[in-house]
């Protein structure tokens, strides 16, 4: 055997070893925070919420028009007045009287209607749903997301040149605009707060005896709430951030919480507690928090705890959701990942999110794998599992709140399980980098 042939043989051998069980099939631990399922009312009437990056934020109470406008308002028999401008650049001044209002919407309504009609006519004319099953293809709701199927007619995909609102009207024009209405009290404008963050209002106001139109933006005024998490080190490992209610400013404490309780402010997607149903803004007891973070062993606590550690290692916990619902959660605390493999023989891998076991080279004899992943669309976890025997007999299951999808069968030619398996294997590094950055992998 020549040196070249020997080198090729060694490379082939190494490639074979590499592909036998020593690859990371499972996605790494996902530390991204779960979103809160609702907001939590505070003692001063604001709401606590969780930002996309997991920070605790406070925002004004639902329908708080004055906060969205950045002013203080007062109702009087003469009408709605601005008591004070609380932020620079709000456009309103102390003493302004609000007379009329109209939303400054981009003038795309007609276009949206025509677009919708064209799509519906097309879909109905086809009489089929197969090409249009993707809901978003029939959703003319967002220009940034418009992406139509290949067969749709050109008139259905016409896009506006601009989605900017038209310039503010003059005082004489505003009353004639569609959707314009008189304002007598703050409740007349309250509904517009649902569009805070993107909506602008054209307000006809009386200022110093003159009538002028002012365009004001309704802001989603969120403020970061600095917190002091308990035991951040162990908390990070467990995918949790717990903040004692007592450590929050008095006004920002949850209205229904006692000072002895602990507020959950962060739950990692891969955390077993997240999979069990714990969500940010849930409340738990101080004693449970101590046990969760590993500060106190449940064995040595004197009081009767709702949290129970079973012999199997499963833990039971009680949490209170923002709507007052009591949640009983059962979970197995996070464990170190395990990876065992022996070339040509078997591969075994397990972490908090999934497991994988295979026998034989490329798992051709047998393989079973499963994983749990958070689905933002469902705001719930989807559990998937797959198995195959001799690559031909294969099956799988996908379990979510919407139901369980099961498949099983015999594939003589197309090894679907292995195709998906390798697809995921190749996609995983890119997917993780894209979603979580290089540190996440």
């Amino acid at each position, binding site marked *: 055997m020549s040196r070249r042939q020997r080198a090729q043989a060694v490379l082939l051998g190494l490639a074979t070893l590499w592909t036998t069980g020593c690859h990371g099939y499972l996605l790494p631990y996902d530390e991204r925070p779960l979103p809160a399922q609702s907001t939590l009312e505070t003692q001063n009437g604001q709401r606590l919420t969780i930002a996309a990056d997991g920070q605790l934020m406070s925002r004004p109470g639902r329908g708080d028009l004055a906060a969205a406008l950045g002013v203080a308002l007062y109702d009087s028999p003469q009408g709605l007045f601005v008591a004070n401008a609380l932020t620079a650049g709000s456009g309103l001044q102390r003493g302004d009287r609000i007379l009329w209002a109209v939303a400054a919407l981009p003038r795309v309504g*007609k276009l949206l209607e025509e677009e919708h009609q064209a799509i519906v006519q097309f*879909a109905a004319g086809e009489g*089929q749903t197969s090409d249009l099953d993707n809901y978003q293809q029939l959703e003319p709701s967002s220009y940034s997301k418009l992406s139509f199927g290949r067969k749709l007619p050109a008139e259905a995909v016409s896009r506006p040149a601009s989605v900017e609102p038209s310039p503010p009207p003059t005082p004489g024009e505003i009353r004639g605009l569609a959707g314009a209405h008189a304002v007598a009290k703050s409740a007349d404008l309250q*509904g517009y707060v*649902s569009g805070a963050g993107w909506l602008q209002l054209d307000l006809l106001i009386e200022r110093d005896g003159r009538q002028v139109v002012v365009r004001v933006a309704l802001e989603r005024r969120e403020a970061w709430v600095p917190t002091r998490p308990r035991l951040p080190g162990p908390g990070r490992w467990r995918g949790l951030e717990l903040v004692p209610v007592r450590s929050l400013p008095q006004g920002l404490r949850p209205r229904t919480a006692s000072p002895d309780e602990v507020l959950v402010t962060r739950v990692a997607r891969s955390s077993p507690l997240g999979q069990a149903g714990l969500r940010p803004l849930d409340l738990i007891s101080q004693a449970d928090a101590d046990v969760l973070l590993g500060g106190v062993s449940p064995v040595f606590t004197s009081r009767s705890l709702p949290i129970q550690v079973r012999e199997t290692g499963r833990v039971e916990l009680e949490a209170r959701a923002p709507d007052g619902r009591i949640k009983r959660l059962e979970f197995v605390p996070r464990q170190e990942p395990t990876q065992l493999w022996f070339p040509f023989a078997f591969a075994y891998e397990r972490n908090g999110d999934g497991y994988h076991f295979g026998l034989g080279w490329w798992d051709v004899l047998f393989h079973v794998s499963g994983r749990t992943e958070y689905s933002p669309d469902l705001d719930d976890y989807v559990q998937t599992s797959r198995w195959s025997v001799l690559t031909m007999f294969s099956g799988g299951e996908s379990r979510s*709140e919407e139901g369980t*999808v099961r498949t099983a069968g015999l594939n003589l030619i197309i090894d679907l399980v292995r195709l998906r398996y390798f697809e995921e294997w190749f996609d995983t590094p890119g997917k993780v980098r894209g979603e979580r950055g290089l540190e996440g992998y």
Partner: protein
Amino acid sequence: MNRVLAAIGTLLAAALTGCGSLDVTPEGILASPIAVAAISTQDRVVLTCDHLGNLTVNGQALELPSVREDARLGLRLADVSWLPPVWRPEHAKAGGYLVTRLHKASPLALRGLRPLDLVTTLNGEPLGEVEELARRLRDSRRREVRLEGVHPDGSEFTISARGDERVGASTQIHVPFVFERRHSSLGEAFACGPFDTLFHWRTRRQHSYVADPSQGHSQYSEDFEWGALTNFFGYRRRRDPLSGEEKTQFTLFWVLTFGDDL
């Protein structure tokens, strides 16, 4: 050579058996129709729903108190009492809850509920606040749910349904040359033989789009079909679940049809 071709042909036939010819997969949600809230010569305010169940105004999502029961009813509702009155469509001027997301396999959709319908009562009682409604919807799983309300065209409705099965559930088993079996919340199917040639049977609730705003541009039919020997003998029946109208058709020698046009 002939043996190779025969082997390839056989393997192809085997691979294609049970690969989706009898689809009953319950995927997707109903496309939202639109509602026009304010009309002028200049422009309109158009309300519709996005795929997450947010109500939108001229394409921009609104933040409204909402309730969801995705598992068995496949339903999301938004409280339009928090909308400015000028943005509310005619049928929702007094407030209430609008349907903002509906799974295609929702039992309520099969009975005629559509996105942007206004729901006013649940089991004969007013809907109440968001938290209370969420609790009542949770408690109603596996029980009969009766919704009353108003369609966007102003017609009133009363719809009763049970969420016995999860809306996205399905099962598929197949063995090439032998059989294929599918089951989902939208129907079930069975076939035997390569390419389902010996016999096939399927029943399903089929959704399709129609150019009829009063139906929310969606309609369902309950289909039943069977065929034998590559449809040498065949039978199809289509029933409108709302009107009860039924059409049937027999097929003989592949091309000869008897009965109604389907």
